[in-house]
């Protein structure tokens, strides 16, 4: 290949890297200081682009000068920064005390609300912004034409890096950010006004996201899907770089930019998965990213977020559980077909959510990619039925086995990490599985998925299939619930509370976590198999990030501190969705608002709220 082409291709990579870095630096700063994984960062990026395509043309009407263009870009970024402040004041400030996962869920609620707000304000048609005056042309580089604006972008990244460095090392605010990133409690102890620091950090983070979005308008049109497409990529950059490390994010962005620029030449079809393979590889070798630091050792004695004291059922709970099971089993006698369908789905989701909480609540293993095992279970069952003509019964046995197999495979690497990096590795593996299902068209049917996955004739009616699901789900939940109370479940809790202590009493923490991961994968796989037969089809969205987030939302709504919370959460979440979807096109707005309201009103989830109502005497020996 000629050198001119290689150079230009590499410049293209640099331009992408530069844009990516500007956005990622904001996310990594916010995470470093607040420890919040801000899903809404992508929404800020999108808002930056939308505000810019509104403001910049208006300014250019006055005078088509490059200065006004960049003034408009900065103005948009500032506006987004203020929106970040609003989010901090109105939402985050109220939830710093609630478990970190709830904060994540709340930011996801913001994502949903912003998506629909953008549709409402700007309409559904993509808006193409103006190009930058004076930078419309191409520049000849070794006989190749390269856009002048992208040359400019290449310099923006290092400039932002330099400015951030100055800010972090030359100002009191920056020094506080660095201190907070290293040790959050220390800053609190120093008597710094933490609230102000957090507000300012959110401003800076949102500003950078908005800047990244506004700078994109000469390249891409503002569209309502740009938030989620950027957020995964930005997560990858910050994780590869090391959460909280701005320089790391810069290096990671460079790496990814070049990987994509040259990856499209060699693997034009698997660009979707390339970055996640890179992330998984980096995390396996460097568990804290390129320049990240290990989370400060758990020197403090803080209660873990999760199931604290798995309470046995009292008379009231026992009655409720009996009634719930009894209701489920007589439901087909009086419920209409649709109610039955929804009930079937709730049971399936309850099983999946319960298995996730077995990891998150009981084991402290926060998985962002639990949908992978759900989806792989569905695929295993569905492919057996459609490709090999296997009947439903053995296929439903294969589903949990497939879930367990892949959970064991991925879990082997996952349990070597901890905290946010563990979560991100689960996400990476889930995305890899997603991409394989998406792109291995010959076997998986690609994004169209596979249809024709219907139950055996004896179970084909809605009523009978409901009983099949009810028996499997109730048995699965009861079995896992039993394990929570069994020594294995207690051991996982012990390892979550104190890995050092567990190790010192002779527990092989990694192996136990791995086994726990596998068990949860099996249960999720079973749920996936049941789901496929209830829908008649499966497709890659079952493994996608939104499905994983739905599962997380369910267990958080239900309460990760409680054993049975996820079941309540699954029912609540699915019902909210089912109620709002037929009512309005803007159902995502209401779903997001409901999630935020629940986080604010029930910061311990519905199950936790119930526990409080019942007055939790945590340890009662029967």
């Amino acid at each position, binding site marked *: 290949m000629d050198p001119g082409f290689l150079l230009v291709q590499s410049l293209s990579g640099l331009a992408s890297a530069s844009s990516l870095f500007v956005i990622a630096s904001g996310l990594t700063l916010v995470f470093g200081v607040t420890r919040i994984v801000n899903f809404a960062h992508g929404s800020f990026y999108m808002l930056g682009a939308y505000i810019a395509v509104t403001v910049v043309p208006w300014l250019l009407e006055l005078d088509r000068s490059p200065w006004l263009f960049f003034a408009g870009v900065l103005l948009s970024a500032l506006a987004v920064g203020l929106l970040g402040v609003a989010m901090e004041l109105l939402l985050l400030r109220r939830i710093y005390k609630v478990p970190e996962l709830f904060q994540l869920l709340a930011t996801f609620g913001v994502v949903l609300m912003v998506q629909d707000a953008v549709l409402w304000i700007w309409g559904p048609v993509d808006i193409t912004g103006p190009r930058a005056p004076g930078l419309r042309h191409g520049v000849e580089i070794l006989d190749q034409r390269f856009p002048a604006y992208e040359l400019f972008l290449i310099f923006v990244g290092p400039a932002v890096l330099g400015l951030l460095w100055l800010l972090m090392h030359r100002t009191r605010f920056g020094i506080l950010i660095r201190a907070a990133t290293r040790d959050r409690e220390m800053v609190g102890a120093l008597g710094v006004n933490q609230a102000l620091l957090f507000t300012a950090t959110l401003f800076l983070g949102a500003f950078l996201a908005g800047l990244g979005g506004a700078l994109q308008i000469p390249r891409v049109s503002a569209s309502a899907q740009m938030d989620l497409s950027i957020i995964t990529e930005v997560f990858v950059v910050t994780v590869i770089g090391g959460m909280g490390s701005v320089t790391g994010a810069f290096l990671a962005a460079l790496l990814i930019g070049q990987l994509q620029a040259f990856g499209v030449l060699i693997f034009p079809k698997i660009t979707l998965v390339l970055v996640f393979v890179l992330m998984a590889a980096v995390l396996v070798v460097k568990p804290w990213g390129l320049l990240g630091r290990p989370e400060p050792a758990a*020197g403090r*004695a*803080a*209660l*873990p977020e*999760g*199931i*604290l*004291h798995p309470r046995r059922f009292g008379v009231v709970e026992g009655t409720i559980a009996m009634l719930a099971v009894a209701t489920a089993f007589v439901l087909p006698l009086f419920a209409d077909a649709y109610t039955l369908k929804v009930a079937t789905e709730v049971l399936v989701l309850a099983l999946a959510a319960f298995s996730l909480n077995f990891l998150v609540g009981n084991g402290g293993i926060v998985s962002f990619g639990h949908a992978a095992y759900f989806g792989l279970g569905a695929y295993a069952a569905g492919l057996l039925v459609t490709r090999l003509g296997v009947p439903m019964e053995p296929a439903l046995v294969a589903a949990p086995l497939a879930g367990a197999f892949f959970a064991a495979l991925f879990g082997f690497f996952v349990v070597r990490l901890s905290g946010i990096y563990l979560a991100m590795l689960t996400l990476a593996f889930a995305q890899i599985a997603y991409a394989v299902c998406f792109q291995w068209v010959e076997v998986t049917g690609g994004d169209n998925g596979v249809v024709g996955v219907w139950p055996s004739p004896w179970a084909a009616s809605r009523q009978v299939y409901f009983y099949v699901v009810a028996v499997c789900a109730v048995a699965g939940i009861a079995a896992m619930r*039993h*394990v929570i*109370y*069994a*020594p*294995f*479940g*207690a*051991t996982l*809790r*012990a390892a*979550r*509370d*104190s890995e*050092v*202590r*567990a*190790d*010192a*009493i*002779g*527990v*092989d*923490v990694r192996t*136990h976590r791995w*086994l726990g991961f596998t068990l949860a994968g099996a249960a999720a796989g079973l749920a996936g198999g049941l789901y496929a037969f209830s829908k008649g089809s499966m497709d890659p969205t079952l493994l996608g990030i939104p499905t994983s987030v739905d599962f997380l939302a369910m267990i958080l709504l239900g309460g990760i501190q409680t054993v049975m919370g996820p079941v309540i959460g699954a029912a609540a979440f699915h019902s909210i969705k089912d109620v709002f979807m037929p009512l309005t096109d803007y159902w995502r707005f209401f779903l997001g608002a409901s999630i935020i309201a629940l986080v604010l009103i029930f910061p311990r989830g519905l199950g936790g709220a119930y526990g409080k109502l019942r007055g939790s005497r*945590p*340890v*009662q*020996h*029967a």
Partner: protein
Amino acid sequence: MTLLRVEGLSKRFGGVVAARDVSFDLGPGEMLAIIGPNGAGKSTTFNMVGGQLRPDSGRVVLEGAEITGRPPRAVCRLGVGRTFQVAQTFLSMSVAQNVQMALIARAGRTRDLFAQADALYRDGALALLDRVGMRSEADRPIGELAYGDVKRVELAVALAASPRLLLMDEPTAGMAPRERAGLMQLTASIARERSIGVLFTEHDMDAVFAHADRILVLVRGEIIAAGTPEEVRADEQVKRVYLGTTGHRAALRARKATHG
């Protein structure tokens, strides 16, 4: 007879020597204290014996079996109990459940999917708690206990492994003076009645001189003195170290004295 034999343990972190050629023996029922100024290498030595750190060189032998570099869980199964400078407990559990958990691990039943964890080894746990004087608190969440009481529970947790050797890193750190003496007395009496060797580090000299059978003085990663409390108290170098002469110079002299 020797319970624990440590031979020539060394460890460097980057360019810093944290332990150099540390050797000592410990017998059953014996209380051996490691003392020294901050950064003397006490914790490093400790973690090398307990398996949290792998030594660069040297050997750790427990009752004739080499345990050098084996992970803590393996060391534990060979009969070593451990308490930490900052108490490490299972915060979500009750006092009794903490000890029960250790007994479950001791019995190798952590992968049991069927039994009820709460019902397992409760009597054994209560007996151990009784021994450390915490029987009455058995069903309280451990997070509610005063720190001194947590340390006692941690001792019971360590004892659950039926250890022949107890490693106690700063057992009385963070405790009120009166509680300290109580805990040390308790440890000493348990050690004697069960013939458990106890290796501990300690800042509180009163506790050390009142309860240790022998004392090692570690400075800059090296042993500068070893012996009974009386011998150590009388040692000129030790006096200098604690009177303010820098540990480094004392250690240099000590090396000259021993090697020269």
